[in-house]
């Protein structure tokens, strides 16, 4: 085969591969889209905590433990009986602030509504005993509203409420079970600041993929 013929073959193969990868990414992105219900995006996530339900409820009511656990992540301030002010610290810098109203709906059931914040959001949490005495399931439902423009902006600023919910559940589980949440971002390495930034981006992208 001539070398120009070889180039054509290679070029064709590259194009086919690129198309295939593009289609795969598109399919994955579609699959990752949350359900929609009356203009709201809806996701359901859950996690099992290896503690009885009362211990899980106790965690939420122990303000000191909650504060210590959330220290690196957000500050929570009680405004009155059922209103809280929450300032979240963004790992990339620049705090996102929102106010939320929390309502206790019954034993082991609460709901919240963001009253002021960048995204209209509401959620519900229910604590259910896990089968075979394996502790407590935290079942969460999150709804948020975002228009097409918002959605595009949201994707650009990498704000994904579903992802945020999943990592929040993981953190809560770890806090209740161990009293701490581990993080390895920016642990010692031989990376330059630029390589560290690239690694952060890859870490985030790998995390966003996740289970459909």
């Amino acid at each position, binding site marked *: 085969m001539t070398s120009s013929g070889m180039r054509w073959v290679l070029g064709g193969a590259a194009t086919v591969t690129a198309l295939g990868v593009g289609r795969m990414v598109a399919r994955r992105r579609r699959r990752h889209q949350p359900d929609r219900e009356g203009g709201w995006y809806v996701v359901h996530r859950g996690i*099992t905590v*290896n503690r009885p339900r009362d211990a899980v409820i106790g965690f939420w009511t122990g303000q000191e433990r909650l504060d210590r656990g959330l220290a690196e992540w957000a500050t929570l301030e009680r405004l009155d009986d059922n209103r809280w002010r929450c300032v979240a610290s963004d790992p990339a810098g620049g705090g996102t602030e929102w106010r939320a109203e929390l309502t206790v709906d019954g034993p082991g059931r609460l709901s919240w509504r963001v009253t002021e914040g960048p995204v209209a959001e509401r959620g519900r949490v229910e604590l259910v005993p896990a089968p075979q005495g*394996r*502790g407590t399931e935290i079942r969460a439902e999150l709804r948020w509203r975002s228009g097409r423009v918002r959605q595009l902006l949201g994707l650009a600023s990498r704000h994904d409420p579903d992802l945020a919910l*999943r990592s929040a559940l*993981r953190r809560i*589980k*770890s806090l209740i*079970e*161990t*009293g*701490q*949440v*581990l*993080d*390895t*971002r920016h*642990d*010692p*390495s*031989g*990376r*330059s600041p630029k*390589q*560290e930034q690239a*690694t952060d981006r*890859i*870490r985030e992208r*790998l*995390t*966003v*993929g*996740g*289970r459909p």
Partner: protein
Amino acid sequence: MKALCWEGVRKLAVRDVPEPTIRAAGDIIVKVRASSVCGSDLHLINGYLPAMREGDILGHEFMGEVVETGPDVRRIKIGDRVVVGSVVACGACWYCRTEQYSLCDNSNPQPVFSEKLWGHAPAGILGYSHAAGGYSGSHAEYIRVPFGDVGAFTVPEGCRTTRWCSPPTPCRPAGWGPTSAA
């Protein structure tokens, strides 16, 4: 401090890196006295496990002296000579309480990557790539060990450092996890 860093497939270099600090209440900092090379280090060096990043510090079988402890550490004391299991385990989740330490739910801070690869994220492992939590390894002067009370074991007086670091011993905690955690 000096550390042996992965720079790319089959490329290693000794670099000056920042020293580790206590980041969680159960952390301990160990001054590494001996760190052995495991067969599985070769998988990382050769790119067989494709979750390494430039600058990652290798090493997961080691012993040393405890120089700092977090506020929640009870069993381990500063000055203790310890051998550390490479699998990070919290000692409190369902898997840890049923002695399945390598499946710990709380020790892999970036579990979604391995969830995607394997369907379930296993525990974090020190110095073992970003699929195992992205922890800095022990081929360095100091290392941070999370959940120090669970993963570190004091070495009895009279045992020489080099003997305790020979591969069989650290491989044991790596294989079936810390036994005295409960």
